[in-house]
């Protein structure tokens, strides 16, 4: 092809590309009159249009790096490393490749992590790593991956661990929208893992969704305890403004996102402790709900700057129905000054657990309300009205389904009911105070939670009222709930006939005045009559 001929073709190509596919044949038919070869040539070139879109779009070097990594991985499959025979590649990360392998001695499957040579050339680093890995291998906790062995064969450093079937949290985040309850469940498990590790003096340093495995049965396992130490340089001397000091992994093939989960002290290259893990867990928790990490940036440096300076967007922006308590927990976990943060995971864990329990209870409550609601669409059918995370703000206005509004109505009714019950309980407590003739209610005192007669006509309240009250009261560290069993026993012992001292809770009217109001009479079924 001569340059002149090509210029001719080029002109026609450019013109044809501007046209819709359907118009091109006609256009070329006219434009190439008398030169059939020219038309054929242009059409042949145009035929590659679809493939051209992706062709050589990624730079050659990037492709090459991927290819080399893939080659390397392939070369290990089938290889024998100590007692392990490598079966297949499971994953790869900045810390090396992970393979599924067969332990020939014990005949079981294990996960084998091969450390990249670049990390193991520095003897001092290897020594520190082995020390840490040994400590981590002593950790015995259901939420921490079990390390079977660390070893070295032909200069190849490896770690043999339990093989966990499941997905990483990262994979889960990509495919599924997590419910708040699931999110809290996972956070609690990671926090439990951290509690055990911190107690043993081990800081994880690299808590992130990639390092968190979720088994199909819901059990969460934290991976790579202490491994991050391998990629860290010795802690920099204190230099409060030197954000550029931060050591960020930039190995090819490593996801840039690593910086997103760093604590401010890590971003500064300072020495870290357990509080750094708390921050990272906060970031993960935030991401599970918001769908993005709290500290974003176009480049690693921007992310680090954001970690050091930016206050995260409140969760309510992404998910208006998030409980305020969660917002508080996150704010405390994500405090930039570690002195202001939760000081230990032991402080964070009960907060998470309490929130999870409350969430479970509310979901339970709404599930039991469900059969009574009409419509049965939207949230009502999705098994409880658990707050669905990640509500798109910029989407269309959220449709409020019939069922949904009913549920919110019931929820607000529920709060009123609880309030009324609380008043009743206080009354009961007062009575028991007189009964026992004790001067004041102390921690040693118990509260008797009597049965309730549900006269609302709404059967769903039959069982849940008492449960609701019990759970609310249990939130207080100062109250002891007297077990049901013993109440009945005592009544039998006292041989008291059922009296008529019925507490009336009054009417509860649904907001907006629609529908017949639920009337609720609450009274002890076997009222206690107290005589001096």
């Amino acid at each position, binding site marked *: *092809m*001569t*340059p002149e*001929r*090509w210029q001719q073709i*080029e002109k026609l*190509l*450019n013109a044809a*590309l501007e046209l819709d596919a359907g118009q091109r044949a006609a256009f070329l038919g006219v434009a190439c009159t008398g030169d059939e*070869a*020219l038309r*054929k*040539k242009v059409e*042949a*070139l*145009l035929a*590659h*249009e679809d*493939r*051209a879109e*992706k*062709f*050589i*779009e*990624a*730079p*050659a*070097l*990037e*492709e*090459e790096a*991927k*290819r080399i990594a*893939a*080659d390397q991985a392939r070369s290990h499959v089938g290889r024998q490393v100590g007692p392990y025979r490598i079966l297949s590649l499971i994953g790869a990360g900045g810390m090396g490749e992970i393979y599924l392998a067969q332990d020939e001695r014990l005949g079981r499957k294990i996960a084998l992590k091969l450390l990249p040579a670049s990390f193991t050339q520095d003897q001092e680093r290897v020594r520190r790593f082995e020390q840490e890995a040994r400590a981590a291998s002593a950790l015995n906790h259901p939420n921490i991956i079990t390390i079977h062995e660390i070893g070295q064969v032909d200069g190849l450093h490896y770690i043999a661990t339990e093989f966990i079937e499941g997905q990483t949290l990262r994979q889960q985040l990509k495919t599924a929208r997590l419910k708040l309850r699931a999110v809290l469940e996972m956070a609690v498990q990671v926090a439990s893992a951290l509690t055990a590790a911190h107690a043993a003096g081990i800081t994880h340093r690299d808590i992130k969704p990639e390092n968190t495995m979720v088994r199909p049965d819901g059990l969460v396992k934290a991976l790579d305890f202490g491994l991050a130490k391998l990629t860290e340089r010795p802690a920099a001397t204190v230099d409060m403004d030197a954000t550029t000091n931060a050591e960020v992994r930039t190995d090819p093939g490593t996801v840039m996102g690593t910086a997103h989960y760093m604590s401010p002290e890590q971003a500064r290259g300072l020495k870290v402790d357990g509080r750094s893990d708390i921050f990272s867990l906060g970031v993960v928790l935030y991401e599970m709900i918001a769908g993005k990490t709290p500290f974003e940036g176009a480049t690693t440096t921007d992310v680090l700057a954001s970690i050091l300076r930016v206050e995260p967007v409140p969760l309510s922006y992404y998910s208006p129905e998030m409980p305020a308590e969660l917002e508080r927990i996150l704010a405390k976990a994500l405090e930039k000054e570690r002195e202001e943060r939760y000081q230990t995971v032991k402080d964070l864990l009960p907060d998470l657990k309490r929130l999870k329990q409350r969430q479970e209870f509310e979901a339970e409550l709404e599930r039991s309300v469900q059969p009574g609601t009409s419509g049965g669409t939207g949230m009502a059918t999705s098994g409880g009205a658990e707050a669905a995370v990640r509500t798109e703000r910029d989407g269309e206005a959220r449709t409020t389904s019939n069922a949904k509004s009913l549920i919110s109505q019931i929820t607000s009714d529920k709060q009123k009911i609880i309030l009324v019950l609380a008043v009743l309980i206080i009354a009961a407590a007062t009575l028991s105070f007189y009964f026992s003739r004790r001067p004041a209610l102390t921690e040693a005192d118990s509260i008797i939670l009597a049965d309730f007669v549900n006269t609302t006509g709404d059967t769903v309240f039959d069982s849940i009222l008492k449960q609701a009250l019990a759970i609310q009261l249990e939130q207080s560290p100062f109250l002891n709930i007297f077990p049901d069993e013993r109440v009945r026993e005592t009544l039998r012992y006292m041989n008291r006939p059922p009296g008529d001292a019925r507490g009336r809770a009054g009417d509860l009217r649904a907001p907006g005045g629609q529908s017949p109001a639920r009337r609720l009479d609450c009274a002890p079924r076997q009222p206690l009559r107290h005589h001096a």
Partner: protein
Amino acid sequence: MRWQNRAHFFAVSAQLMRRILIDMARSRHYLKRGGEAQQVSLEEALEVPIEREADLVALDDALNSLAAVDPRKAQVVELRYFGGLSVEETAEVLKVAPNTVLRDWRLAKLWLLHELSGENHDDA
């Protein structure tokens, strides 16, 4: 060597990178599939890596052919694909408008795919 300017530096880097990568590909001994259509492997290098070596060498040849009829388009490919430059950077190096780079890039890809597909026997 002294760099005359930034553009010069980029141009030379892209050239060097091209040479290194092609040499690497050549030195691997897979070269069994000459000019057949193997375009997919560039995108899916992880899945079909074996075809890639042949691919890269074939691409290099095709790029040389392109340079003979349209040197600037070949340069755009070199800068973008081997040099990893963005459209704007490429425009800066070649001292043309970014739109021109985009048009060149689009046509060069069609040209290369056509060349690599082996249909290009005739010299119309």
